[in-house]
């Protein structure tokens, strides 16, 4: 019985984190499997691994069942004993050991082996009901029966353990693979949080909590509705994060809590805390699930760490980009502000100084030119302001139902005389078509697009504006019949300070299309340019109709809330 209890204590002292804990007694095949698992999850270094104490397993119950089985065999043996030789009956006893080993493992098998031999001795060897063995010739088979029972029991139970481990490992590797797969697709912190939370909820079916250090301490990013979270839980999560130590149920710290709190640790710091509140579980199953939880934590930590590093790299890149942009901005501004200013100032000076020698038509021309350039200056300043607002994230969308025709009309009205002189073909639906957008911003998009179309196509060729509904959004397209945009610039034209399709004389600062892109994307829409086969360019964008816009607004309003109610 000593062997049995040692076996038991072995199992109840499972080393959590040593990934192949149950494969300790493994054959080479199992060890190989273990090494794969190790490679997949890279467990914590030995010694530092947190130890989880789960409630004692029900091994004594298994032993009782094994003994019951022996008792059955004894009864059966007694019933048929008169007709068979005792040695044949010994095989029946061996069968009980094999069954016990298969069903309940090594401990119960050993238990039944001893019980079987004792029972054999008591009931089948004369004198009956006495441990004394009268005939020495029985002693040898009895002892060899014990030896065989023990060996068979051990072998069978080991085979069972192998099979079980292999199965668990297969499940485990599969689950870890699924985690890795889900995380590989997540590229931002938000998505990682969603992926980890979704996975934890699906895999374990337990309430899950995921918190990430923010500006003001640990911030809960995800919490299952049924995860009870109070001050004690907050304290445990904080401790786990601060001391990089697993706490909660079964650990040294906060053992009174229902949940387990695992720090998401990486070489470069704790990335957050993952917690579960396990339901009462079958301890063997729980062990398997805790292993998976550890693996999920490791994976999540790596993914979050990676995202944090990427974020930093991205910020550095933005800084660099900002620097480049500032230079471009200075160049652009100095050129684009000075040109119209020079025209205006020149015209005014000329009118002041040479008033006497200017004839009426020249004076008129100077004035018209100055007025045009001043208007251009105004548009440039407005674009710069829009750009600044976009960059500062200060663009607040005020979505309201707007009629497409109204938007187009307002844009043409804003373009004023220039748009009245141009042939403009409108291809709009003949009934009101409402989109839920910010009227001013979308009008501005249209103004910029039509303005571009007028700049980049000859004055006599018409400009087309089309709008049509498709699939929850409205697509608006502005078409010109000029030279078109070279294939390689189709995406670049939306970058800031990217100027023109040719070395243009049109005074674009390279802001218009990037502002359009900013405004359209702020609405959750898309904007793109294409070349027309017959020459000319088309820039199209989509804006949401009612339903989608509302959704977008809500998502934008409170992403954290949406995330935390996810289940």
């Amino acid at each position, binding site marked *: 019985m000593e062997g049995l209890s040692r076996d038991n204590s072995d199992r109840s002292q499972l080393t959590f984190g040593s990934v192949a804990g149950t494969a300790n007694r493994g054959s080479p095949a199992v060890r190989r499997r273990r090494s794969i698992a190790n490679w997949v999850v890279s467990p914590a270094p030995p010694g530092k691994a947190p130890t989880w104490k789960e409630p004692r397993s029900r091994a004594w119950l298994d032993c009782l069942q094994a003994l019951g089985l022996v008792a059955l065999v004894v009864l059966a043996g007694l019933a048929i004993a008169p007709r068979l030789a005792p040695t044949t009956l010994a095989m029946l006893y061996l069968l009980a050991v094999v069954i016990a080993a298969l069903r309940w493992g090594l401990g119960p098998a050993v238990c039944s082996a001893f019980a079987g031999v004792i029972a054999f001795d008591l009931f089948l060897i004369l004198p009956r009901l006495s441990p004394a063995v009268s005939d020495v010739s029985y002693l040898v088979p009895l002892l060899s029966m014990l030896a065989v029972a023990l060996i068979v029991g051990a072998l069978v139970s080991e085979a069972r353990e192998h099979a079980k481990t292999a199965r668990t490992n297969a499940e485990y590797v599969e689950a870890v693979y699924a985690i890795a797969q889900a995380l590989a697709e997540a590229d931002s912190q938000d998505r990682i949080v969603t992926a980890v939370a979704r996975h934890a909820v699906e895999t374990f079916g337990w309430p899950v909590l995921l918190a990430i250090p923010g500006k003001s301490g640990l911030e809960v990013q995800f919490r299952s509705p049924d995860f009870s979270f109070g001050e004690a839980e907050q304290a445990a999560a904080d401790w786990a994060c601060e001391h990089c130590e697993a706490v909660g149920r079964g650990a040294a710290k906060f053992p009174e809590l229902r949940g387990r709190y695992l720090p998401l640790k990486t070489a470069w710091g704790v990335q957050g805390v993952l917690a579960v509140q396990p339901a009462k579980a079958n301890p063997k199953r729980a062990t398997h699930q805790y292993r998976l939880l550890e693996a999920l934590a490791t994976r999540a930590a790596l993914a979050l760490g990676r995202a944090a590093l990427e974020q930093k790299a991205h910020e550095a890149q933005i800084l660099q980009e900002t620097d480049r942009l500032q230079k471009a901005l200075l160049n652009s501004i100095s050129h684009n502000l000075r040109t119209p200013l020079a025209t205006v100032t020149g015209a005014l000076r000329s009118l002041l100084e040479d008033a006497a020698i200017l004839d009426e038509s020249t004076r008129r021309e100077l004035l018209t030119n100055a007025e045009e350039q*001043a*208007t251009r200056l*105004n548009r440039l300043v*407005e674009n710069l*302001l829009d750009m600044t*607002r976009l960059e500062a994230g200060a663009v607040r969308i*005020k979505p*309201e*139902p*707007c*009629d497409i*025709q*109204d938007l*187009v*009309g*307002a844009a*043409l*009205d*804003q373009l*004023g*005389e220039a748009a*009245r002189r141009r042939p403009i073909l*409108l291809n*709009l639906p*003949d009934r*009101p078509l*409402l989109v839920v957008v*910010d*009227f*001013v911003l979308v*009008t501005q998009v249209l103004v910029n697009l039509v303005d571009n179309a007028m700049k980049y196509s000859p004055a006599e060729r018409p400009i087309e504006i089309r709008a049509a509904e498709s699939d929850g959004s409205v697509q608006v397209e502005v078409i010109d019949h000029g030279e078109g945009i070279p294939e390689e610039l189709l995406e670049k034209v939306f970058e800031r300070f990217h100027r023109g399709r040719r070395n243009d004389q049109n005074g674009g600062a390279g802001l218009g299309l990037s502002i359009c892109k900013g405004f359209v994307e702020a609405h959750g829409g898309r904007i793109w340019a294409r070349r027309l086969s017959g020459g000319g360019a088309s820039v199209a964008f989509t804006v949401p109709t009612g339903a989608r816009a509302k959704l977008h607004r809500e998502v934008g309003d409170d992403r954290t809330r949406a995330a935390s109610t996810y289940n």
Partner: protein
Amino acid sequence: MIEQGLQVLTIDDERSIRHLLRSLLATHGYTVHEAESGQQAIEQVRIHRPDIIILDLGLPDIGGADVTRCLREWTATPIIVLSVRQDDSAKIEALDAGADDYLTKPFSPGELLARIRAAMRRTARLETGSVFRTGDLTVDLAARDVRVGERPVQLTPTEYELLKMFVSHAGRILTHSQLIREVWRGIHYEDALHILRVNVSNLRRKLEQDASRPRYITTDPGVGYRLRTEQAATAAPQ
């Protein structure tokens, strides 16, 4: 000109804008008073009792909406607000506080004069008979008759209510909330805005030659609608 000798108070902290307004308005026969802060403006209104006030929204001491509110406590003098495009909300706040109209800088002189005339007409409108004409559009409020040229136009009761609202405020901006308050009392704002857009769209299809480039009912993006009068329509493109 009918506005001969009318008194205008211009309130702007920028000297150049005050100068521009002075030369423009004086040329058209107005008597111009000036103020460069909200505080000064309130004093000037008490002293000169102007017929019309032109108020810049970006004053250094008091916000334009607050000046409007303050003035509206004791005077009904028409107020036209000057703003830049970026201050949509300040503009709407001032309009809701009781300002009569607004102009976005830079503005054309023709537009400013048209706005002044429209604002001045505000009180006079009621007495000038019940037939309104602009371009080809004739609205006879007494007979409930709407015509484009000689062609009578069938309007739904709501469209007619809306048009009536425009006609009785011809030339002036009507904000979305003003229209909704008058025409769709008691309907939830967002629903009403939806209905307003559809009705304006339908009204344009019935009245305008080209509903996409309306001549009569024009849109002020983000603010509201305006029924252009003949003078404004011809003065605007200057």
